[in-house]
């Protein structure tokens, strides 16, 4: 995040730098500051109507637009990849309206907007990750009413959630939540980490970077400041466990990373490749070679030009 002057003109004529007007940015920054001050608490904010649909990242886009300065370097990912259509679209939006430098390299970015993943490479101090959030309320599917859930948070009355997790164990033998797995932030609020796979939950704990969450349709912003305790809910006899994969990445041979399953044919052929495409490419550049690298279609390898 860098300071920016209000007079900076946007490359797209007729709109302010990064689309939103400065008053709106100020309102959103206030919500962000409050969110940082009360980690995990959902701060209502006057979400604007954006030129992309609700549910497609309007919350994340508003947060990014409010913190972006002309010297920032922006990375946008969706499902871990820089090249999924919506990530391309959002990156292009900021190129057009803010003219900032964009990158696919996790290490180079100062602001990373994401949907559904946290990059494999740990974030450093000074980096900000902005999550797009569809349903910010972790208790929503246990209690549909906002008036009720706000009370439950205020009283830290989280019995419902523990009962839900317990019922999972009673029914299935383990907790059957694989993504949007609830966490407790700084020992106080229960928070929805957005629909990232629970594989990514440990990365949120004591992260050096600032984590901001924007839910546009639901008009909520929340945050985890750097170096904050984030605990995935569990029980002593059923400790939290992340997903494990039995194969390494078929392209870069990485282990201990989140993999996507790619269907190769209609006869059961499958390959497992890194969900984080940037991490995968960097490893291949460093000479790591997966078992199927040679016979993978060029498109999947990501070898055509960088966007």
């Amino acid at each position, binding site marked *: 995040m860098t300071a920016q002057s209000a007079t900076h003109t946007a490359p797209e004529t007729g*709109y302010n730098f990064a689309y939103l*007007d400065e008053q709106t940015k100020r309102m959103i920054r206030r919500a962000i500051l409050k969110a940082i001050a009360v980690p995990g608490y959902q701060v*209502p*904010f*006057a*979400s604007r*109507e*954006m*030129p992309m*649909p*609700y*549910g*497609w990242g*309007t919350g994340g886009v508003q947060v990014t637009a409010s913190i972006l300065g002309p010297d920032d370097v922006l990375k946008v990912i*969706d*499902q*871990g*990849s820089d*090249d*999924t*259509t*919506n*990530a*391309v*679209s959002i990156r*292009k939006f900021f190129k057009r309206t803010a003219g900032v430098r964009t990158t696919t390299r996790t290490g180079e970015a100062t602001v990373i907007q994401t*949907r*559904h*993943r946290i990059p494999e490479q740990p974030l450093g101090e000074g980096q900000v990750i902005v999550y797009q959030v*569809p349903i910010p309320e972790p208790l929503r599917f246990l209690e549909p*009413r*906002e*008036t009720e859930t706000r009370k439950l948070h205020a009283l830290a009355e989280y019995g419902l959630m523990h009962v839900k997790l317990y019922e999972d164990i009673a029914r*299935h033998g383990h907790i*059957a939540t*694989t*993504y*949007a797995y609830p966490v407790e932030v700084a020992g106080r609020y229960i928070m929805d980490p957005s*629909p*990232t*796979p*629970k*594989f990514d939950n440990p990365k949120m704990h004591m992260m050096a970077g600032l984590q901001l969450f924007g839910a546009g*349709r639901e*008009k909520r912003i929340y945050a985890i400041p750097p170096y904050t305790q984030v605990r995935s809910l569990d029980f002593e006899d059923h400790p939290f466990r992340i*997903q494990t994969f039995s194969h390494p990445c078929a392209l870069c041979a990485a282990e201990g990373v*989140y993999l*996507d*399953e*790619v269907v190769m044919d209609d006869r059961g052929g499958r390959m497992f490749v890194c*969900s984080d*495409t940037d991490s995968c490419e960097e490893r291949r550049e460093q000479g790591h070679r997966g078992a199927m690298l040679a016979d993978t279609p060029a*498109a*999947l390898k*990501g*070898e*055509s*030009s*960088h*966007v």
Partner: protein
Amino acid sequence: MYVAVKGGEAAIDNAHRLLAHERRGDPSVPELSVTQVSEQLGLLVDRVMTEGSLYDRALAALALKQARGDLIEAVFLVRAFRTTLPRFGYSQPVDTARMEIRRRISATYKDLPGGQVLGPTFDYTHRLLDFMLEANGEPPQPPAEADAGAAEGDMPRVTDLLDAEGLIEPSSASDCDTVGDLTREPLTFPADRDLRLQALARGDEGFILALGYSTQRGYGRTHPFVSEVRVGEVAVELVPEEIGFAVPLGRLTVTECQMVNQFKGSAATPPQFTRGYGLVFGQSERKAMAMSLVDRSLRARELGEDAVAPAQDEEFVLSHADNLQATGFVEHLKLPHYVDFQAELDLVRRMRAEHEANHPYPLSEAAE
């Protein structure tokens, strides 16, 4: 392939070029002008203005053309434009009693001061396809002289007549002291009536219609009468601080519906009719009427009624009335979800493996 591969940007650009091509349709057919849309599809333009919360016929018509006639997409374009507009002030409340009437009907009185004015309406038309229109037949006859201009004379609101007798709850001026704006402040619950009315006015016509209909079928019945529906032009006035008096900004066509609903007294207050209110841009009696039904139902808390039906549940109604929010979230399911799906795949496979380990024989055999 729409995800995961390099070159997504080119694919998106190409898709949009194709869209522009499809929008134009057969180039041998003359292109539709924005003026044609605003003049000849006027009610559609009205609806885009109402749900887009922006009174601008030309922009709404342009949005409809750009959206290939997709109503919600047109509302989207208008709203995304509206959000960038600066606010330079708030107008004075429009006075619908001073409306230049084009149509005004009351279902509660046979005749009343100002009379019943049918005006332009589909009511009582026989819905027979007019094949002359398809053949671009002769222009319609000019309207009859007496109906052409605005109705003459005094046209008091029917609810004001009831109010004079004390038969209906007063609609106090203090209601409009500070009016909220849900496009500038996040909506919180419980919401006051000003915000509820704003949400209903912007809300999807189909959704509000269905909810209003549900109250008539017993899900939170309110015993409504249309005291009045009026359509016409009202003046919008603004008081600039430096001048200190109201100056006219322009005129709006609006449809207003005042619903009169069954009374309920208490020990402290004698029985009185209650109100439901609807106001929309342009001519849309369906929306204004449905809105006033739902408005009345949403006053359940205030009037001490049990909130048992969907139309009385403000969190339910207000959270789901906006068609942009609804369509965005429904259609976002088109976005890639393969990371989460992978997590679910993994879990289902594991659970199936556990199930197989615990039940080595198929259930059907075990049962025999």
